[in-house]
């Protein structure tokens, strides 16, 4: 773990709770898909738990995030209620979006999950707008845009960073660099030595950090969020990480380097952090085991409730297109 000054014990444990929730949620997701009970398209964030956990402990529920298809970890870390989330993944009427959005479009403003997009790069310009509203109102909120390394090559990234910088918007751009965009390695597509370097194009701070190190990630996030909240403008954080289960659940991932993947999984950030917490006296094994069991129970309950929940009515197709319902 990073040697910078550590945050409070409560925060350290809360980060672990979030990471564990994400890890267990991922395990349950992959398992339930294989049963066929919830046949969703699933972009596993396993391996990337630490990033949103460390970001979110620096946010309030008033702060908002815009995330992407690979975003369950971001949502869970931000606090989307499990039952509402799982009902949405299952396409049920009781889901966050009444079943109409699905995994790629989870929205839950109450916990600050404002937009989830399936279009690479689109989380950034929208997060700017969220931050713009805060800037105009002076309400002290910040907005976080999550996106991947591949997204740093699309036009929206560039436009959004430039606008955020020139307007000093209270927004934090968190690039989760897992070394791949779909089947293609970073080096094949991205001319920058590191994505953090691209911040220089906008005279914006650009930070590369080990996204699998909770303490380092915590500090990077805190610095950026404090800065944004203080009206000093945006930051680009490049959080280095790895995705354990390929691009989309079910893909054969032969394009990935087997040794690289093995090494990454051996350095799994979640058990590593668990051990560190215990070794450094921040938590006892019993305490964490109990926490894990509780999360497991909550997840099981949420998933079962989702499967038992009612489907939406077909009349929903006419609702929420506009404020006014479309005539039958």
């Amino acid at each position, binding site marked *: 773990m990073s040697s910078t000054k550590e945050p409070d014990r409560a925060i350290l444990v809360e980060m672990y709770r979030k990471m564990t929730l994400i890890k267990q949620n991922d395990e349950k997701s992959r398992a339930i898909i294989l049963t066929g009970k919830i046949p969703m398209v699933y972009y596993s964030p396993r391996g990337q738990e630490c990033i949103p956990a460390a970001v979110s402990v620096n946010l309030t529920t008033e702060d*908002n995030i*815009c995330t992407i298809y690979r975003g369950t970890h971001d949502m869970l870390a931000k606090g989307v209620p499990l039952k509402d989330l799982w009902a949405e993944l299952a396409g049920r009427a009781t*889901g*966050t*979006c*009444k*079943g*109409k*959005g699905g995994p790629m*479009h989870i*929205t*839950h*403003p109450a916990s600050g999950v*404002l*937009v989830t*997009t*399936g*279009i690479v790069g*689109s989380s*950034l*310009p*929208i*997060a*700017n*707008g*969220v*931050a*713009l*509203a*805060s*800037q*105009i109102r002076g309400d002290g909120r910040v*907005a976080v845009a999550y996106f991947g390394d591949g997204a740093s090559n699309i*036009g*929206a990234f560039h*436009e*959004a960073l*430039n*606008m955020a910088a*020139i*307007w000093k918007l209270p927004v934090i751009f968190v690039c989760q660099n897992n070394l791949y965009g779909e089947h293609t390695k970073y080096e094949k597509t991205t001319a920058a030595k590191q994505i953090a370097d691209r911040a220089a194009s906008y005279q914006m701070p650009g930070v590369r950090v080990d996204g699998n190190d909770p303490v380092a990630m915590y500090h990077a996030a805190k610095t950026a969020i404090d800065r944004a909240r203080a009206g000093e403008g945006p930051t680009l954080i490049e959080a280095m990480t790895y995705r354990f289960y390929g691009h989309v659940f079910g893909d054969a991932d032969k394009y990935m380097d087997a040794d690289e993947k093995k090494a990454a999984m051996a350095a799994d950030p979640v058990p590593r952090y668990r051990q560190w917490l215990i070794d450094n006296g921040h938590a006892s094994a019993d305490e964490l085991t109990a926490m894990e069991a509780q999360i497991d129970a909550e997840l099981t309950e949420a998933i079962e409730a989702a499967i038992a929940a009612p489907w939406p009515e077909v009349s929903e197709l006419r*609702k*929420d*297109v*506009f*404020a006014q319902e479309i005539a039958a």
Partner: protein
Amino acid sequence: MATETKVKKIGMIQALNMALHEAMSTDENVIVFGEDVADPEEGGIVGVTKGLSTKFGELRCRSTPISEQAIVGAAIGAAIMGMKPVAEIMLMNFTTVAMDMIVNHAAKLRFMSGGQTHVPLVIRTATGAGLSVGGQHADYYEAWFAHTPGIKVVMASTPAEAYGLLLSAIDDPDPVIFVENTLLYFTQGEPPEAGKRIPLGVANVVRAGTDATLVCYGSHVAPSLAAAQKLEAEGISVEVIDLRTIAPWDKKTVLASVAKTGRAVVTHEAVKPFGVGAEISSVIHEELFDQLQAPVQRVGAPYCPVPYSKPLEVAFMQGADAIEAAIRRTLQSRVAA
């Protein structure tokens, strides 16, 4: 043209500017941004946003980088948070670079979020042939947006209409594309009543008639009225309907009129194939097949990019003559009823 001398006419640009001043004055959530819009001297390229930055400050009216994705993205995010952004995309052709933001996000977020979020933004944009600007500055995409569930499309035909419709577009809880015609910028008309809204989704019967229905909007309202007036001299009475809102369009008013006249023409400046006229024509045929005395005729630009050369541009643009000819076609081909 006008015979009265009492009422002081106002220009289209002024009317739009008045609507923005009115909206920003009465609702602090209304913000305006786009390329050059905060220029205190001119207020954008044609002056629609003149004076806004001076009066309301650069926090609420700001010039942006040339970054249409970021412009619409910022409008979406702010709108979700309850602001009422009026974003300017200088010309409609430039909406193509922001199409993802408009179509995949602005139009869909209400539905995809199950109604938890919504996107009350307005995108003002201008277009239109006739100014010799060639192939990339005069396209119409209202048919694309009308084919995109979740976004409204509005086009105004006079200064007063523009004023009232823009205010309603800003009030509206859903995203609206507000399309301004560049030639109409230079026209004058009756001044609007201060603060008076014209509801979206309601067409305007600008001229009553009994023999045929002429459906039009935006830049084609004036030539439609001219054609109707000309035919009146021959005793042919044409009802002219200004759609105002292209999506969702006012079926009720259009169908009621055609049910009465039994004949219809739909006309627009956009390219004819796969244009808005196709939908309206189809619906009229579907709903009123037995009442129709002749097939619905469509008028629109020929299937080619907007040409530069003046005689080509003139031939490209369909005006009162083409509309008159289309009405005559509906009169001639009367079926033996």
